[in-house]
């Protein structure tokens, strides 16, 4: 298949780590990376029901004269054919429109959260809005390049979690890497989750492709996070619960991303994944 991942390149050592991670991701799942080297500190993404302006920090405009060469070097290092994206449409002269027809988007944590350049921090509102409206999964990379050796899917039973399971299975299929499923039991028995999988006709692929399904009690969420291998790609669904529940009790996605250093692949409510 002709999957494409959009990466917004940052010509800094930290940006190099993120880009290497994107390239590695593409190599493993046979996707084609497309690099956008920003020329202004903002761009717009028009989704079906929202226009999201992404404001980049100044580091994205570092040494523009060497940016393309550096990106090309990294392409060559990973032996991947390079492709650069040049915006064709502009809402204003300094505000390019970035298409939303990619299959994946690499969205560094720092896109809208300046405090998280080194640490993990929280996802900024822009990343959240992109996740909320995107029809494609978002790759949130680890702070340093970290090749992953397995896939861990968080399955909580929601529609988005089902999508994350499907994409986890797809990646396992194309990469041949082992897949683990992690479920934190919330007032439901393990059989309930298995029935959900069965209803979605995923029992067979899960049997064939997954290594183990781990169940944890509700209070063992932190233990579950610790049990996930440090070199595993975590696939999870966002916005599985309502806004109020998230507001009162905190978002699981936020909790996970600010706790673990793994690469995260997040599917939002508008992602449509088929096996």
């Amino acid at each position: 298949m002709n999957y494409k991942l959009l990466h917004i390149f940052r010509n800094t050592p930290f940006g190099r780590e993120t880009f290497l991670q994107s390239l590695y991701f593409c190599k493993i799942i046979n996707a084609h990376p497309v690099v956008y080297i920003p020329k202004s500190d903002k761009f717009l993404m028009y989704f079906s029901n929202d226009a999201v302006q992404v404001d980049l920090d100044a580091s994205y405009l570092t040494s523009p004269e060497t940016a393309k060469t550096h990106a090309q070097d990294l392409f060559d290092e990973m032996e991947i054919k390079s492709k650069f994206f040049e915006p064709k449409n502009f809402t204003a002269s300094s505000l390019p429109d970035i298409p939303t027809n990619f299959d994946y988007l690499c969205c560094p944590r720092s896109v809208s959260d300046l405090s998280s350049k080194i640490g993990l921090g929280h996802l900024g509102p822009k990343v959240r809005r992109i996740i909320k409206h995107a029809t494609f999964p978002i790759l949130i990379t680890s702070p340093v390049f970290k090749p992953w050796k397995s896939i861990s899917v968080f399955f909580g039973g929601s529609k988005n979690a089902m999508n994350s399971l499907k994409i986890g299975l797809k990646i396992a299929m194309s990469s041949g890497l082992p897949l683990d499923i992690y479920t934190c039991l919330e007032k439901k028995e393990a059989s309930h989750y298995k029935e959900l999988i069965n209803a979605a006709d995923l029992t067979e692929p899960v049997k064939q492709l997954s290594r183990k399904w781990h169940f944890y009690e509700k209070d063992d969420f932190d233990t579950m996070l610790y049990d996930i291998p440090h070199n595993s790609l975590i696939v999870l669904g966002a916005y599985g619960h309502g806004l109020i529940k998230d507001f009162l009790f905190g978002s699981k996605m936020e909790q996970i991303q600010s706790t673990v250093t793994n690469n995260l692949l997040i599917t939002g409510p508008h992602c449509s994944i088929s096996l």
Partner: protein
Amino acid sequence: MSKIKNWYKRIYHELFHLDDRLLLIIAGSIVGICSGLAAVALRLSLESALEWLHPYRSYGWAFLLPAIGAVLSSFYLEKISREGAGHGVPEVIYSVSRYGGLLRLRSSFSRLISSLLTIGSGGSAGPEAPVVMSGSAIGSNIAKFLGLNDRQRITLVGCGTAGAIASIFNAPIAGLVFSVEVILGEWKFVNIIPIAIAAVAGAQISQSIIPAQVIFNHHPFNIGVSDILPSLCLGIVTAFVSVLFTKILRQTGKIAKKTSFPFWVRAIIGGCTVGMIGMFMPVVLGEGYHFIQLMILGTFSMGTFLIFVAIFAKIFATAMTLGWGGSGGIFAPCLLIGSLTGILFHKMLFVFFPDIISAREGAYALLGMTGLISGVMQAPLTGIFLIVEITGGYETILPLIVVSSISSTMSHYIEPASFYLKELIERGQFLRPGTDARILSDLDLGELVDKEHIRVSENMVFREFIELIKTSNQNFFPVIEDATDEYKGVIQITAIRKYVLDPGMYDMIFLNQVMDTDILTASLDNGLQEVLDMMDMNNMDSISVVEHDLFIGMISKNRILDLYRRELIMQTTAH
């Protein structure tokens, strides 16, 4: 939360499932009220700012005031709200024509603040375009909140525009006409009622908050048939002034962009220039409504030569304000330049024809305003209805129509694109509904690609290929490398005729020996127009689509035509 959602869905379904017009009327009136409030807020804030700064205008350092305003305005736009500068109307038109009217929430207030800083400090610009931007963004975001589709969202954007213009000028019909003529570009029954209601709502809000507001008072003009011929000439004059104004505005902006100065230095240069001009000619400062009122009443005391200079001074000051970092629109400057042109024309008329029977100077100020609005925006109806409504002067309707049609036609002849559309047309992004360009841009290249095309291996023996084409109606066969699936070339049936007619060759040649490797291919990143251009230039009926060296499918002109017809029917028959 889910209960609220279910409740909302039930109400929505119960009320609007039969006809979405009711939904648009209710939502449109809400949008009209909100955009009207935004316009009133800007107008009152501007009045307060101008009044507050008035005592300081007599000081020698007062020329710095527009510079301070421009710096604050550009700093706010660049660093706080992080929006590009500009007056915003092209952005609204762009969003309507390409993205179903999607606008950012921040646009609903950012231009109000930045234009308040620019105009309030004396910058030469108008508050109308910022309120249009604000009203449109309010409409777009209300549509987003209600989860409406593109068509409904565009209608609400139009409602926001109409409400804002209606509110700021207390002119609902002008609001409706401007919205449909300039922003939406299509007169559709389904749009007009919600937009009209929004315009009335906007005007009512304005009247209820500022009850005594009539922007331009006037006495009856006694304009007659004898003024028709001078109106014709005035139409020609305003057309030339409109073109000059448009060109200077654009050129000044381009020069500013070419400089390497940071945004705040540009704002200082622009602001100080305007301030210096304003020291000698205060008519150029701010939106200029007060001076327009004087001209309509016939009490404007400037001499003929100074009026002539003032026209150019205002044009230059507006260009320096908007091109060098300030924020605001060209509506009010058009009105001022138009009224100056009108009274200058009236004075010159009496110089050359002292015995002529003509209406008073004020009537010509109105005619000049219509001429400039119609010429710069190439929106004749907006020009006519705006002036008729804001002056309540229906006695001038015939000369207004004459001036407006002459000015808009002539300026269109000299400069085919209006000021609002010029940049979009140059970038190929002006796509009105129902036009070829719009339909082609709405077609998804991925949808046009025939992915079921039979592919052949480069190592296939020619005899096998002959057997294959016996059962296929394809004229093009993409050739693929076995090991990597890479696209290697294409075989056109017409190009291999000599091999087909020689059966002795069937077992001697492989497809990689007869394939065409230098035929152009398209990529999914190409726009449909680009693909069509490639096919036309190379006289091709079909083209291969290749991504990352992998064959994706073929695009044929027949398929494009089929989908074009389908899209055309959809766009022209929907509602």
